């Protein structure tokens, strides 16, 4: 059984990689389309991190953009000002950003539910202000421009050109790796624990799960994904500014997870694939962009609490259940304490 699953998984990842490379190559002729695909890949990576945090652990964090920003600014600083290799700067600044994220978020992680959301929002606002008011590190609200793309030397390939579809392929594989990390965590013991925390953190505590420890671990891993995404965003677009990493970005990433379907592997990918291209394709309708987004947020919360993929899954299960006339297991949910 396990071996079958492993081989099935293997095929899934291989076809995923093939799809990613295929998409990157198919759009290589059109650099606008390629750019959209590249941004979608970045968002898949970000939403994978958010999914681990929000979808599986139940933590609604509004500071994810800030962490991505630290990763981006850190990488750019090491890469441009200190002359580090980009490929060395990314892991260093990503670990640094995740550590900063955990240190900032640690006290907040003790807080439950809404207070965590609020604290993370406050931290996000503070980080945006730091990006603006410390121009010696960030160049202030005007941002850093003309960030060059790094080169890459692969054994067997020699120097790889990253100005063309090469970079989109890297972004796609990165996104795939991010999703795989989340998938493996969910399949592990840790996955069972964090889902238990999401369902009822008090009960999880009673069952002997070290809730804060797991929350911190999840927060660190998701911050890592955010920061890596931020670093690649910087060199991919060639430009970063405080507005690239503001609270709106945190909200958008959250929205993609909620829209696609929280707590499912495919949901956030679907959410990113649908939502990311919209503003690019509707460039001319910029005036209604905010209204459209706001309405979408409300609509998802009211009508599709499980998201697009979640709703499909539910519908599918109900259908299958009717066919099998099997009894659905009903979770015992404790009454909310008043």
């Amino acid at each position, binding site marked *: 059984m396990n071996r079958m699953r492993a081989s099935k998984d293997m095929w899934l990842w291989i076809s995923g990689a093939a799809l990613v490379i295929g998409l990157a190559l198919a759009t290589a002729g059109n650099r606008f389309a390629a750019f959209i695909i590249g941004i979608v890949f970045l968002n898949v990576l970000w939403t994978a991190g958010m999914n681990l945090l929000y979808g599986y652990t139940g933590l609604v964090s509004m500071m994810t953009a800030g962490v991505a920003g630290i990763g981006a600014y850190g990488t750019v600083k090491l890469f441009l000002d200190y002359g580090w290799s980009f490929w060395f700067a990314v892991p260093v600044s990503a670990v640094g950003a995740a550590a900063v994220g955990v240190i900032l978020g640690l006290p907040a992680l003790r807080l439950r*539910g809404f207070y965590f959301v609020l604290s993370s929002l406050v931290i996000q606002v503070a980080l945006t202000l730091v990006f603006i008011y410390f121009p010696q590190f960030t160049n202030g609200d005007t941002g850093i421009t003309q960030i060059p793309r790094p080169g890459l030397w692969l054994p067997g390939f020699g120097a790889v050109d990253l100005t063309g579809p090469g970079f989109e392929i890297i972004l796609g594989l990165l996104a795939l790796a991010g999703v795989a990390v989340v998938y493996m965590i969910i399949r592990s013991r840790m996955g069972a624990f964090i889902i238990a925390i999401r369902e009822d953190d008090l009960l999880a505590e009673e069952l002997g799960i070290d809730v804060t420890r797991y929350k911190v671990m999840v927060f660190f891993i998701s911050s890592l994904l955010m920061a890596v995404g931020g670093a690649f965003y910087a060199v991919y677009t060639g430009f970063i500014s405080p507005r690239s990493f503001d609270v709106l970005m945190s909200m958008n990433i959250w929205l993609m997870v909620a829209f696609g379907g929280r707590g499912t592997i495919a949901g956030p990918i679907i959410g990113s694939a649908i939502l990311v291209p919209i503003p690019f394709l509707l460039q001319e309708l910029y005036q209604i962009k905010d209204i459209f987004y706001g309405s979408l*947020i409300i609509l998802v919360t009211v009508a599709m609490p499980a998201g697009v993929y979640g709703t499909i899954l539910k519908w599918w299960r109900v259908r299958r259940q009717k066919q099998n006339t099997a009894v659905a297991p009903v979770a015992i949910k404790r009454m909310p304490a008043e």
Partner: protein
Amino acid sequence: MVDPNLLIGLSMLTTGLVLGAIFALTAAGVTIVYGCIWLPNAASGQFFLLAPLVAWSLSTAMGWSPILAVAAVLIAGLPFAYLLERLLIRRFYDVPDRNIAYFVVTLGITQILSGVFSITWGQWSDQYNIPPLAEGVVFIGPFPLPANRLIALVGALALLGALFVGLRYHRFGRALRAVFQNREAAALRGVDVQRIYLGAFLLGTSVIFAGGLLYAMAYSFDLSVAWSMGITAFAIMIVGGPGSVLGALVVGMLFGFVQAAVSVFASPTAATLSYLLAMLVILLLRPSGLFAR
């Protein structure tokens, strides 16, 4: 020449009072809604801006007298809030984690309203002045205070007083506080909790509208005030204790005076950052706020 220290001291006092009263009023509106319904209204800043924008249009484009415009906005605010409650807010009354759901939904409202603002009022002007109710300047000792700002201050203090007395002694106010303190016990005493929710939403939203209108009487405003006031009101609510009107009063006034004092002794930027810091520290050390209910 008058002693500059006296002038600065008086300006500190009046600034602290005006800002503090408006902060306190707005935060009181936010905290009433949160305390009662458990609805953290992320769109409160947009509501705060919406009211004076409409009043601006009525008084400049339509030529209404400013008093009439302000009154009309306050009255029109009620059906607006009522519709919102009917269509959206009440859907979540029975959701267990409704504060998070509400937060997200009101973030959506924030997006919609700011989108609406930028394609309507944002197209018409980039700053707004409601014509003054009264011209001229009142001298407090040597310090000149514009009559209009004095009216705004008196209005804010009067509303705060009325709010405080009403919550303390009126039957509805008592029921509202009862729901804050013990939802279920209130229901068992015969309080129709859903009606109180509706009442709290109408009251809180109207108070936020009033705060915005008074602000617009005291200052020129633009679209960016929504964001800064939304954050400030939230900060006051969190530091004061969510659901505590007394907390909103005390901390609101405190924030006003802190802004005034820090501006003198440090810099206006330091004052803004000090709010965020205070909010974070309180959240981490004492999430229920200084005036826990």
